[in-house]
């Protein structure tokens, strides 16, 4: 008998050890209860009506920026735990520029943009901490994180617009293109007549280079090709003459030839509307071509940011370097592709050391410490890596050279 009981005990212990990776029912219940409490509080704040403006009007740090992300934390309160999708992100989108956000899937680049539009899947998705300052057309600066839902509806679409990845799922299949375009105008310009709206919509379809805009106006989304649908989406975004366009993987679902068309269009539009574009993509080629500034994200944090030339010519963080090396470049003649070993860490149980350490080839003793702080390398170039300190002397020399070259050029000019 004793033997049998001991054996059973051992079996149970083994099972318990095995199930360490999984969450028990009790744990789920406890986290769900705690999360529900937090969510309720936040939703209450969000759903208030007739809130005084002074509560969310702030001051921009630099009036030349359209958007300033300041230590943004965007969490998803799920039953399995808190998913820290965006965990302390700060960067600026200057006026009249294209800022590219790159990263692998699940790194939080889309959530950053959704937080800016306040479109995160609610009620689980909430901005937990931090500020997003937005410089409106009328000169006011809004703190988007605190703007309640009612007032956000006035800003969203009119002040900033979004172009989504899949044009088919973001257009409503049961309404004609024209109806969907006019709806935007009816919402944001109350009192506009039907005729005016139609004219405006058709004019906008023309500006995005759609042939025969009158006939497209009265068609259904399924009658258009992918490229055309994406053009309609862009037209819709432009209708209210926004200050900022957020393009979330606008060309990922399209062919290369159509991608070239759409990118060309976006570039022209940026010049026309005199606004900024926040371009989110995982394609480094697109970023190199379009962006002025680049933000590289990994597991919810920014690991490196700077101008395009800094990121592509002088990358510091091993992840940025690895990403660039792992693309099969046209006509490069490499023998074997560089790979970054392993995969992105689980966003629920993130380690307390550098998130990239386990995949990093250049890790050393210091990397076992806390998550590295962001270090400034040049006025515009930042990176979060312990290697920066090691390389600082090297970089300083390089920077000196760059400065020298710049000065030389200035003299020449």
């Amino acid at each position, binding site marked *: 008998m004793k033997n049998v009981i001991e054996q059973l005990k051992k079996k149970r212990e083994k099972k318990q050890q095995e199930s360490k990776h999984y969450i028990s029912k009790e744990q789920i219940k406890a986290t769900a209860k705690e999360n529900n409490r937090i969510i309720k509080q936040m939703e209450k704040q969000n759903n208030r009506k007739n809130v005084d403006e002074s509560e969310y009007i702030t001051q921009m740090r630099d009036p030349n920026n359209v958007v300033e992300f300041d230590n943004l934390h965007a969490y998803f309160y799920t039953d399995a735990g808190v998913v820290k999708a965006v965990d302390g992100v700060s960067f600026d989108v200057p006026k009249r520029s294209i800022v590219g956000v790159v990263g692998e899937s699940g790194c939080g680049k889309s959530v950053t943009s959704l937080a800016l539009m306040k479109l995160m899947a609610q009620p689980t998705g909430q901005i937990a901490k931090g500020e997003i300052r937005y410089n409106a057309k009328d000169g006011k600066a809004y703190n988007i994180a605190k703007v309640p839902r009612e007032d956000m509806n006035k800003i969203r679409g009119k002040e900033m617009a979004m172009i989504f990845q899949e044009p088919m799922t973001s257009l409503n299949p049961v309404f004609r293109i024209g109806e969907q375009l006019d709806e935007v105008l009816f919402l944001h310009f109350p009192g506009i007549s039907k005729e005016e709206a139609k004219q405006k919509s058709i004019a906008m379809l023309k500006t995005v280079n759609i042939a025969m805009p009158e006939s497209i106006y009265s068609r259904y989304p399924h009658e258009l090709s992918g490229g055309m649908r994406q053009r309609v989406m862009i037209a819709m975004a432009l209708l209210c003459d926004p200050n900022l366009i957020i393009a979330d993987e606008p060309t990922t679902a399209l062919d290369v030839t159509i991608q070239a068309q759409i990118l060309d269009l976006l570039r022209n539009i940026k010049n026309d509307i005199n606004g900024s574009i926040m371009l989110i993509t995982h394609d480094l080629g697109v970023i190199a071509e379009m962006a002025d500034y680049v933000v590289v994200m990994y597991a919810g944090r920014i690991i490196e940011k700077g101008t395009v030339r800094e990121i592509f010519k002088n990358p510091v963080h091993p992840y940025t370097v690895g990403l660039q090396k*792992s693309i*099969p470049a*046209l006509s490069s003649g490499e023998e074997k592709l560089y790979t970054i070993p392993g995969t992105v860490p689980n966003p629920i149980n993130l380690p307390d050391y550098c998130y990239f350490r386990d995949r990093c080839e250049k890790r050393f003793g210091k990397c076992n410490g806390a998550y590295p702080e962001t270090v400034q390398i040049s006025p515009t170039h930042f990176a979060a890596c312990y290697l920066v300190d090691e390389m600082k002397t090297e970089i300083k020399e390089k920077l000196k050279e760059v400065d020298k070259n710049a000065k030389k050029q200035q003299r020449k000019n």
Partner: protein
Amino acid sequence: MPKNNNEKIENIVEENKLASPLQEKKNKPILVVENLKKYFPLGSSWFQKQKHYVKAVDGVSFTIDEGKTLGVVGESGCGKTTLGRTILRLHSITDGKVMYDDIDLRTISKKEMTKLRPKIQIIFQDPYSSLSPRMTIGEIIGEAVRQHKIVPKEEFRDYIIETMRLCGLPAYYYSRYPHEFSGGQRQRISIARSLALKPDLIICDEPVSALDVSIQAQIINLLVELQEKMKITYIFISHDLSVVEYISDEIMVMYLGNVVEHGTTEQIFKNTMHPYTKALLSAVPIPDPDTKKQRIILTGDIPSPANPPKGCKFHTRCAQCMEVCKTVDPKFKEYEPGHKVACHLYPQD
């Protein structure tokens, strides 16, 4: 006009027929495809005869040698996926020949085809929908192995684990389910599944398009490694030119069901002849902010394959379109050894 066209098409076919035996002497081809056609009927009704067709693949011919990789490139809707599936007879073949080791895949019976299946395998694009969520990884990889009796029962488990190890999957994944894995791992499972049958030819239908850059590189390296180890032949279907350039020995560019250019990777990239290939190449964004290249931006979309334009199918979007292009189908001719182009810009006789 149509008569002329027909004659010309027949001529092209004859040319191809003449060309293929010559190549056979040089190397041992594993797959010979001749004038393969796949038409999908449109608008069939009870009273009308089916008259309209979507010509998804319209007269494609090529040969692949053993241990080589053929890249197939083109925009969506150009018929590259249909080509892959038709070769496998996942779609019935409308017309033409698919010769695998001197066996015509079109004429053999279903039973015989089933016997041949382990030799020709496919890896699908979307690793999320191509794995059954109710089966463990071991079962997914082993299902076909058991069916085709590749190994005796006693060695089954060891064989599966060995295959998994080859594809970079640890043995303890054997009894796990697909939902526990990321996209890259799932694609490894798909590769292991087709590899377990000891195939000669694998058709890779956009195996890396759904993956992130860093994972994409891992999968491509794995495919290349396996090819070196086991001498597998690949047909690599993709819309990403840089990936295709990296992995392929030969490249075939398709447009609306036709092959417009076919040559070795070097010929296609260094001596690009067809305007469509040129446009495709120039549209690829380069991850270097300093290279600003002259871009050929194609106007408009790919025409509907149900109603393709007359003459050269590309003439509606071609920057160098001439009068001839609008009426006469260009011949698919060889201009360099192994480099074939169908375009009126080059001498047709």
